């Protein structure tokens, strides 16, 4: 079972991100379970949502406390809550920022872990560029697909087409595609830039 935890703020599409991840996994014939952290949603408040992916039925209903991957939609959360709590030693981290992990003061975490599994993506900018809104969720799940290899880009695109239509779908597909290849490039460079 592969477990993903998404951190963000109310209004950033955190819950939608996990739902779309689960749809993408489903499109590949896999079992997936997405669920929010059940808070009273408020714009700007920290929000957590979860997604499990497996090849068999998922029965487990506990929150994800030891994720295989973290998607962090808002770097300002790093100073507010322990987003890395429980992350598996060889876990993946995709962070929405145009800065590097080092400039954000996260060098220590990189030293302790598999740095090649840490990646940043300017997802808010990519959302703005392609969709016209500063919503980072779709770029991030596409970037996550590239970083972890857990799901394919075409599955993410299928999930986008299920969720959106017309121009919004087109914009999101463009954002997802650019994000996917951007992360692929970064991984090729071997680094966590």
């Amino acid at each position: 079972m592969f477990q993903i935890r998404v951190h963000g703020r109310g209004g950033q599409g955190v819950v939608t991100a996990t739902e779309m991840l689960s749809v993408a996994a489903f499109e590949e014939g896999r079992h997936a379970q997405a669920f929010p952290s059940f808070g009273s949603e408020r714009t700007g408040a920290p929000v957590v949502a979860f997604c499990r992916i497996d090849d068999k039925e998922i029965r487990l209903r506990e929150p994800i406390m030891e994720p295989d991957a973290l998607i962090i939609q808002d770097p300002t959360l790093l100073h507010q809550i322990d987003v890395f709590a429980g992350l598996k030693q060889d876990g993946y981290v995709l962070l929405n920022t145009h800065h590097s992990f080092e400039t954000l003061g996260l060098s220590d975490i990189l030293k302790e872990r598999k740095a090649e599994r840490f990646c940043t993506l300017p997802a808010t900018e990519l959302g703005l560029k392609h969709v016209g809104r500063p919503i980072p969720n779709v770029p991030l799940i596409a970037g996550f697909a590239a970083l972890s290899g857990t799901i394919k880009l075409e599955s993410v695109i299928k999930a986008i087409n299920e969720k959106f239509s017309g121009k919004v779908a087109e914009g999101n597909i463009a954002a997802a595609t650019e994000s996917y290849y951007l992360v692929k490039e970064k991984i090729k460079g071997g680094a966590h830039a």
Partner: protein
Amino acid sequence: MLKQTEGSKAVAEAIALCRPEVICAYPISPQTHIVEALGEMVKSGELMPCEFINVESEFAAMSVAIGASAAGARSYTATASQGLLFMVEAVYNASGLGLPIVMTVANRAIGAPINIWNDHSDSLSQRDSGWMQLFAETNQEAVDLHIQAFRLAEELSMPIMVCMDGFILTHAFERVDIPSQEQVDAYLPPFDPRQVLDPAEPVSIGAMVGPEAFMEVKYLAHAKQMQALELIPQLSAEFKKVFGRDSGGLVRTYCADDAETMIVAMGSVLGTIKDTVDEMRAEGHKIGVLGIVSYRPFPLAEVRAALMNCKRFIVLEKSLAVGMGGIVATDVRMAVTGTGLKGFTAIAGLGGRPIPKASLHKLFRQAEKEELPPVTFLDLDWDAVNKQLERERQNRHSGPIAENILHDKGIVSAKFG
């Protein structure tokens, strides 16, 4: 059609396939997505003929459902928590009048303290209301139980609550096989009411009944639930023939054949329990599970049969009878009267407290060794409890408990200055 969808959306689609004629509901988390989706279907014409009635409260929702059902319309509503409590007077009337309304309860805790998260306090507070109550383990089962519920309710002319864990199921995206309209039509005939308000053949429904007949009317409500004990397995078997999957029934067991320790529970936590049991089985523990689908009527004989061969059982329940202990556990112990079986109760998951596998491992191992007190509160923060108890000993004016505990835990500062 197999799809990846939200539990609430899946239930809304299942309800629509049951061709309800009147839907009336008042929004309350975590039920809202269900009736929102149904409202959209009625508005777009996808669900017709059906009237969606906006009401001003839950009391009105149930009252409208009563009127609609008495007029011969297949009627549906949904609620949770305080919403259910607010409609209670009408809830008892619906069952007392024998009206086959189907209601989803998206199980949520009851305040105070106000809490929107999941436990089973709301529907269990209505255990004696005369409504049948079925508990879903997964979103697939929630879909299937709703389809069976209309059949069951209308066969017996009695209302039924389909209970699904709020947020944990209602807001979870998982794969669900939504049946076709043909399948549902083959299983669920049009509503043919036993009693109906019809201007052409006037009757009254809701007579005042004195001591000369009240007990008989009440006994008949009980007798109907006893009939349901026979009907529920039949409807589940028939469901399997049409839809090809096991769903519903009175109880379900897992790894129970040679189990020395049995875990009894209801709802979505059964999934986490089964995963825990698999891991313990792999280590050689003789442990099994009894899931109760039908809480009302309570299947005493089936529960007894399922527990007869174990040595001990633990009822893990998301509800608390304050001043007593377990609510479900009381019924389970009634079922095993005279067997000498050792029974434990674990109160867990109140107000949305997560029930992690790690805590279950510990609890089940203690149960195996019979090292538990009669009632255990899973993952209770004893430091926080004891601190407040000490505060109350020290200070006559110790203040509001919820605010004190939150303050101690540093979650919010409820105190000023």
